[in-house]
């Protein structure tokens, strides 16, 4: 370990020497950072050793990944590059929309329709001397481990739980353990995650394998609000129910625009839905269906507040700086923020779950009776609050031969394996200790479950 330390410090010294003469580091440019990194102070971590080499590391070696170039992403890129981080990659699959311009300040009217990642990178690289932001106009799922492995820290400004879970799973899959099962800390890539919703926001730090991960605390992220089908069909009470009704039933039945699916950005579509929803609202004596509400429900809009993004991005950037420089103890580890009424923040330690499906190293054990049907096992995978799978496909190995228990996505396999659903686990040839491979969209990798069968227990973990 010490050898490694000496080695890297030497590397950094070399780099600092070579960059001192560059015009990028004009005199005084990094004063604000140097005051923190080159001397100690009352807020410094007790183990912190001030050194000019740390700035060299930030400027020349530290490689960051920013996921999302939207409201949080613009703030993050600005903060991080002005702090001295230069090597930043940014991924975003979205293009710029008029409604982004009030807060996503790296974009201008001319940029509408262009890739957020590209425009944001260009803006920053032009504005901040020395910044080398590299854009990736794609989904995070388009890259594999070899891409994510190159970064020191991953910072997320995402609006999707599925994407957060995916990157979380990816970073966990990069962890390496020695033969005794001890985590190799050099394989840990910290994830700093920001999220905002209106006046509420949160910032958290995940040290994969060491602290609570996304999956450990999935309960903190409420599932998307979906009204019960029966409510919207028969007993609507709110204007939202009426809009949802038209979305789920009316559109398919009346096909106002032929076979076109609903496009939330098409004003004609929203107008038609709004009109139908108004009729329904009238039948049930419900007030409040408007164009704006209709669009909000269809696009699931939660109004974005620029100042919330700024606060959360500032917290995230500060944490990245502390993690990268070791100059202060990182936040431990989950901060919530709300300024809907006054200003409220609270920081607590989200706890790592020993049975986390993603970050607990050992495969998860699930208990069933030999007489339980495969259907019950699948229901468990979908309904368990720690798993919340969407459409799991399950394979296993029986007597050395692979066996597909159920897979819905492929019609020929679905047909062949459908009868398995009502068979008991014992009749399917599964025995206690059996390894099940389960694939689902909610995780980047297949998961391994160990099936325990006994007569006493019902479905539980």
């Amino acid at each position: 370990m010490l050898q490694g330390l000496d080695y890297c410090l030497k590397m950094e010294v070399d780099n600092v020497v070579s960059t001192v003469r560059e015009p990028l580091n004009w005199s005084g440019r990094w004063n604000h950072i140097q005051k923190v990194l080159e001397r100690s102070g009352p807020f410094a971590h007790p183990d912190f050793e001030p050194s000019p080499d740390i700035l060299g590391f930030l400027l020349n070696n530290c490689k960051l990944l920013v996921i999302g170039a939207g409201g949080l992403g613009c703030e993050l890129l600005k903060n991080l590059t002005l702090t001295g981080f230069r090597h930043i990659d940014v991924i975003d699959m979205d293009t710029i929309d008029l409604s982004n311009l009030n807060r996503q300040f790296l974009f201008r009217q001319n940029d509408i329709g262009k890739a957020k990642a590209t425009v944001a990178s260009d803006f920053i690289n032009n504005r901040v001397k020395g910044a080398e932001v590299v854009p990736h106009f794609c989904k995070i799922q388009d890259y594999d481990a070899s891409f994510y492995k190159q970064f020191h820290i991953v910072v997320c400004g995402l609006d999707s739980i599925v994407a957060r879970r995916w990157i979380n799973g990816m970073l966990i899959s990069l962890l390496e353990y020695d033969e005794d099962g001890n985590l190799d800390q050099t394989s840990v890539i910290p994830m700093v995650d920001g999220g905002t919703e209106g006046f509420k926001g949160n910032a958290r730090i995940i040290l994969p394998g060491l602290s609570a991960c996304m999956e450990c605390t999935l309960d903190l992220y409420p599932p998307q609000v979906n009204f019960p089908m029966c409510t919207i069909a028969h007993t609507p009470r709110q204007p939202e129910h009426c809009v949802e009704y038209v979305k789920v039933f009316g559109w398919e039945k009346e096909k106002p625009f032929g076979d076109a699916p609903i496009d939330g950005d098409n004003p004609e579509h929203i107008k038609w839905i709004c009109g139908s929803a108004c009729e329904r609202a009238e039948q049930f004596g419900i007030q409040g269906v408007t164009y704006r509400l209709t669009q909000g429900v269809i696009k699931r809009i939660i109004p974005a507040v620029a100042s919330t993004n700024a606060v959360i991005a500032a917290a995230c950037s500060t944490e990245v700086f502390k993690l990268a420089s070791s100059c202060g103890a990182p936040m431990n580890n989950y901060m919530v923020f709300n300024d809907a009424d006054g200003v409220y923040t609270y920081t607590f330690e989200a706890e790592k779950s020993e049975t986390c499906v993603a970050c607990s190293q050992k495969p998860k054990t699930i208990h069933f009776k030999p007489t339980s049907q495969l259907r019950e096992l699948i229901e468990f995978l979908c309904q368990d609050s720690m798993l919340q799978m969407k459409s799991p496909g399950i394979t296993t190995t029986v007597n050395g031969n692979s066996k597909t228990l159920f897979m819905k996505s492929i019609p020929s396999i679905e047909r062949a394996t459908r009868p398995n659903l009502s068979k008991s686990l014992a009749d399917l040839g599964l025995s206690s200790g059996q390894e099940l491979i389960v694939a689902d969209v909610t995780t980047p990798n297949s998961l391994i479950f160990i099936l325990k069968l006994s007569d006493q227990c019902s479905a539980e973990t």
Partner: protein
Amino acid sequence: MIKLFSLKQQKKEELASGTSSAGKRKATAAQLRLTKDLNELQLPKTCITEFPDPNDLLNFKLIITPDEGYYRGGKFTFSFKVGLGYPHEAPKVKCETMVYHPNIDLEGNVCLNILREDWKPVLTINSVIYGIQYLFLEPNPEDPLNKEAAEILSTNKRQFEQNVNRSMKGGYVGSVYFERCLK
């Protein structure tokens, strides 16, 4: 406190290929990955897969029925063999239907970059299927396996179209007899 950056540095450059804990597992990386790939297969409506043995996910067929382009109306079957090296190695794909096509030879070999030189582990079964489908929409004379077909495609598109039609209806193109493969 974990001083991550005192510890890590250049070690990242080393290729930590494969997961070190994989040895203890019975499930192979290929099986884990393939289960994932297939569970998330999203095919265009012109493609279907057939698994002769649903327990054997490593071997399956792809049936493409193009709805536009030169090959509209035809029905072409491909066999997929996924090896245990997957996804470090590409699946092996052969065309089982004899087809008059610049990028598919009469033995059923398929010339598609992502099946060979441009394969990357990040690609999936889904990407390969889309790649094959694309060959039928845009046969590429630059990359010929069937040179005669490629030459005609680049010199005389009408002739090429006629040849494709003749082959799909069942008949001779030059000295080669093609079985009927209209759906």
